[in-house]
């Protein structure tokens, strides 16, 4: 079979991989790199429109970027005209107005991970700003100015941390310099706090606002001249700070993509073949066009790319209900010649056959000699299965697009809730045929980033943005909001791929792990013409293994990882901690099978495994996700020991309660978790408590960090009981009546603790999730002596609600 070999992070689509690669180069410290980010030492200061300080920092194209004028970041107003262009400088992270208002610019999309507030905290800390003076603004999407702007892979904090600290510190340094000049005193005698500059000896002080215009006249310091704070001097970092957008959220202000309303805007729906890859043979378009409120209905042929534009029928209407009502009356005959015939039943049968053959078709990693090690040793064999799951973001996919005919070159304007905005912008511009410009930058395409009603990786793919743009163009250049129904959203997702793994492991007479063989059975892209060594855009992502070096590859004296792939057409994509979210379940469950076979305490067994590292870390970093790169055994050991202590592991529990332990490293986060469950006679699982210990370096916002962990535990528990069933290429679950996300009564106590370490900070959208599932499954085993080897757990008769 001509198949694809998994490489590190391959489960992210090309767009995010390119961005991660660029980010990794950026993060290599101060050494200049080629390309537009090479001027990262560049800082520029200018006066704001009404006076005051505007600090441009970092990545700009200098004067050109400074000369640009940005549209209002608030985007359009409901029922009114789009916001008038405001005289703000796009090339700015920090703006201080003479009245003392401090505006900090957050460059990455807010998807619920709390990045907008976190970025504000990092800058405000170094600026010594009073938090109540601070406003945080979503940056325009402009990679020439801001570099990478995306939300994925828990990368926002690690990639932007130093840039933002320097921005805040530089602005502070300029305010200090302005005061020193004005008072004719040495800068070293000046202190700052709470947006005020002070000279104690002469008992003088000035607010940042009062100094802003004078500061703007001074030259900006270089990165090398800027000194960031010692950690002991932090005042905001690590505190509990309520999200900046919370007042707007609790009063129902328009923030999300779905809230966009433009003058003369139409609402569109788009019907695609229920089995991906089907084409429109015919549709009752004439009938649909006559329905009340319907403006137009037409067929889009598409470009055949799952992540761009697949064929379908668009209905454009005066309002949402007219569009939704018409969609119910739409009758389409599909040509399913090339459509998906995927069947979970058939894939499961394939996997069992493949597993029976022993090792897989491709070898991904080999250490020592597993076959020799298995001889005469105590061995355990198991076959693990996990189903497909949907992202089910509560805000259904949507985009507002406006294709504008223009003699000087047609334009495209997009308002979107997307995780990789520049990728959405260029994909849409490409499909509607906009002029590419230099470096395929599509200068006539603009994207306004909207708050995202749940990402979880779904909005790394942008087909809805492409569809909206294509519909707006075809409809004659009217602004169009494309709305997915919940049914559209659940049945046209880029699913967390299901998959299988056959495992065999061995322990020696002392109960020590000696050998581990894994055979991953997963998928490649059924639409691709067997591409050697590469995947087609929109192909299967997230179906395989995070990395050949994924734990325990480097911690087992004899290790073998092989894989067998079979093509599917069902679109798959990154889903919160892609690769890791299933790898952790397989590895940490099987690890518990081995410690159980060895009759060892599981914590002791796991600690021993982390103590037997076989080789140095293969690759440091590993920004995008899991893999062996970046796992530091000392950090793993510290989190496991701490969670054992905090959870009362091994100590008496309430009657009927049982514990399970798991550890996983992904996205630069080390997490150990202990689940405490009970299981009733009907096999209903109650999760009473989850104790979580994480090491992600210093915490930016403790409130948000705890919230992420609590949510990750609930998400993991919920997902243990979820699946989408695929037969004949079609998704069975259509709405929340059958795709039963967990509700409030299942929410356990979550005890969250972060180790206080000095490693660089990293993101928290993902790494707390992967160990939660196997911790719960290991606890279920402790309670019932039944091993969960199939997800969802409902397939083994268990339930959670």
């Amino acid at each position: 079979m001509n198949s694809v070999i998994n490489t590190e992070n391959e489960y992210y689509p090309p767009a995010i991989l390119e961005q991660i690669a660029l980010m990794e180069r950026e993060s290599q410290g101060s050494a200049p790199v080629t390309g537009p980010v090479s001027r990262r030492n560049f800082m520029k200061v200018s006066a704001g429109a009404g006076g005051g300080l505007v600090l441009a920092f970092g990545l700009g194209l200098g004067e050109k970027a400074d000369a640009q004028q940005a549209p209002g970041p608030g985007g359009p107003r409901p029922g009114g005209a789009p916001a008038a262009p405001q005289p703000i400088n796009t090339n700015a992270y920090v703006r201080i107005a003479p009245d003392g208002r401090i505006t900090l610019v957050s460059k990455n999309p807010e998807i619920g991970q709390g990045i907008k507030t976190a970025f504000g905290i990092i800058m405000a800390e170094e600026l010594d700003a009073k938090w109540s003076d601070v406003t945080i603004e979503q940056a325009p999407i402009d990679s020439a100015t801001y570099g990478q702007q995306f939300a994925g892979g828990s990368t926002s904090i690690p990639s932007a941390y130093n840039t933002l600290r320097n921005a805040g510190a530089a602005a502070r340094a300029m305010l200090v310099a302005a005061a020193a000049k004005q008072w004719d005193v040495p800068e070293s005698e000046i202190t700052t706090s709470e947006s005020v500059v002070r000279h104690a000896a002469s008992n003088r002080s000035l607010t940042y606002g009062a100094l802003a215009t004078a500061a703007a006249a001074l030259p900006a310091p270089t990165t090398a001249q800027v000194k960031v704070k010692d950690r002991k001097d932090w005042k905001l970092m690590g505190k509990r700070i309520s999200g900046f957008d919370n007042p707007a959220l609790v009063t129902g202000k328009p923030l999300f993509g779905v809230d966009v309303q433009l003058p003369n805007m139409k609402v569109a729906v788009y019907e695609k073949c229920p089995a991906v890859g089907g084409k429109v043979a015919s549709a009752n378009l004439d009938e649909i066009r006559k329905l009340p409120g319907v403006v137009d209905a037409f067929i889009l042929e598409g470009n055949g790319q799952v992540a761009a534009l697949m064929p379908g029928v668009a209905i454009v209407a005066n309002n949402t209900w007219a569009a939704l009502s018409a969609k119910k009356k739409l009758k389409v005959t599909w040509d399913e010649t090339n459509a998906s015939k995927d069947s979970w039943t058939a894939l499961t049968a394939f996997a069992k056959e493949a597993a029976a053959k022993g090792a897989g078709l491709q070898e991904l990693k080999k250490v020592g000699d597993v076959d020799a090690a298995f001889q005469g040793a105590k061995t355990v064999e198991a076959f693990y299965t996990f189903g497909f799951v949907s992202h089910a973001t509560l805000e259904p996919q949507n985009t507002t697009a406006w294709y504008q005919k223009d003699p000087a070159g047609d334009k495209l304007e997009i308002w979107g809730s997307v995780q990789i905005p520049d990728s959405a912008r260029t994909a849409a511009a490409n499909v509607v045929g906009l002029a590419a410009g230099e470096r395929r930058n599509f200068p006539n395409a603009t994207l306004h980033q909207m708050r995202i009603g749940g990402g979880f990786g779904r909005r790394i793919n942008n087909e809805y943005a492409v569809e909206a743009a294509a519909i707006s163009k075809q409809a004659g250049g009217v602004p169009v909001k494309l709305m997915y129904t919940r049914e559209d959203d659940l049945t046209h997702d880029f699913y967390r791929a299901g998959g299988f793994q056959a495992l065999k492991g061995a322990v020696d007479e002392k109960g020590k792990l000696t050998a581990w063989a894994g055979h991953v059975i997963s998928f490649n892209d059924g639409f691709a013409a067997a591409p050697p060594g590469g995947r087609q855009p929109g192909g299967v992502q997230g179906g395989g293994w995070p990395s050949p070096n994924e734990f325990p590859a480097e911690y087992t004296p004899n290790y073998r990882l092989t894989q067998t792939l079979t093509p599917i057409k069902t679109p798959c994509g990154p889903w919160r901690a892609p690769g890791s979210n299933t790898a952790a379940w397989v590895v940490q469950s099987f690890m518990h099978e081995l410690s159980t076979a060895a009759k060892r305490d599981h914590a002791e067994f796991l600690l021993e495994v982390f103590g037997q590292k076989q080789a140095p870390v293969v690759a440091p970093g590993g920004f995008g996700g899991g893999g062996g790169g970046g796992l530091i055994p000392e950090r793993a050991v510290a989190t496991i020991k701490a969670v054992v202590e905090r959870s009362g592991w091994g100590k008496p529990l309430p009657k009927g309660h049982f514990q399970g332990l798991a550890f996983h490293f992904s996205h630069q986060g080390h997490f150990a978790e202990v689940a405490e469950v009970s299981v009733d006679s009907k096999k209903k699982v109650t999760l009473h408590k989850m104790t979580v210990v994480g090491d992600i370096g210093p915490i930016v916002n403790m409130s948000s960090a705890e919230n992420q962990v609590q949510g990750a535990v609930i998400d993991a528990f919920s997902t243990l009981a979820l699946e989408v069933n695929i037969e004949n290429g079609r998704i069975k679950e259509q709405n929340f009546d059958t795709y039963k996300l967990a509700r409030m009564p299942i929410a356990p106590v979550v005890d969250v603790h972060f180790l206080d370490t000095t490693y660089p900070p990293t993101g928290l959208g993902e790494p707390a999730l992967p160990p939660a599932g196997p911790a719960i499954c290991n606890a279920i085993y402790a309670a019932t002596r039944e091993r969960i080897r199939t997800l969802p757990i409902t397939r083994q008769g268990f339930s959670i609600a």
Partner: protein
Amino acid sequence: MAKVKLNVNGKDHEVELVDDQHPLLWVLRDELGLVGTKFGCGMAQCGACTVHLNGSPTRSCSVPAIAAVGQKITTIEGLAQNGVLTAVQKAWIDHDVPQCGYCQAGQIMSASALLREKKNPTDADIDSYMQGNLCRCGTYLRIRTAIKSAAKALNGSAS
């Protein structure tokens, strides 16, 4: 389809409906620009579209607008009076409840109704009342805490 008059957040509005099934949700969002009330499922499964009809929590995606004629409709935009947030809204900010925030308008509308019905709800009362509101991010623990905190604030101010 005829025009109907709706009373939303204390103001009368005349709106034109597509048909007699036209859900209140889409009238609020599309015709009145009140986009704080969210669409999540269209079949009263997720609670994101919760509004009050004469004070009762109602899934506006599944109620035709004509059924709301003559009733007092309250949306998330109508909770705060003269810019003063309610105890529930304040508690949501104090306890930093939202993650993505998409479900929170519906959660707050349900929680506000709960606290009108029960002054001191237990965890079980809260779970039972709030289980119609999904939160994909899993902020349930904070919602519980915020509701209790709001209850305490309301009871304190009443005594």
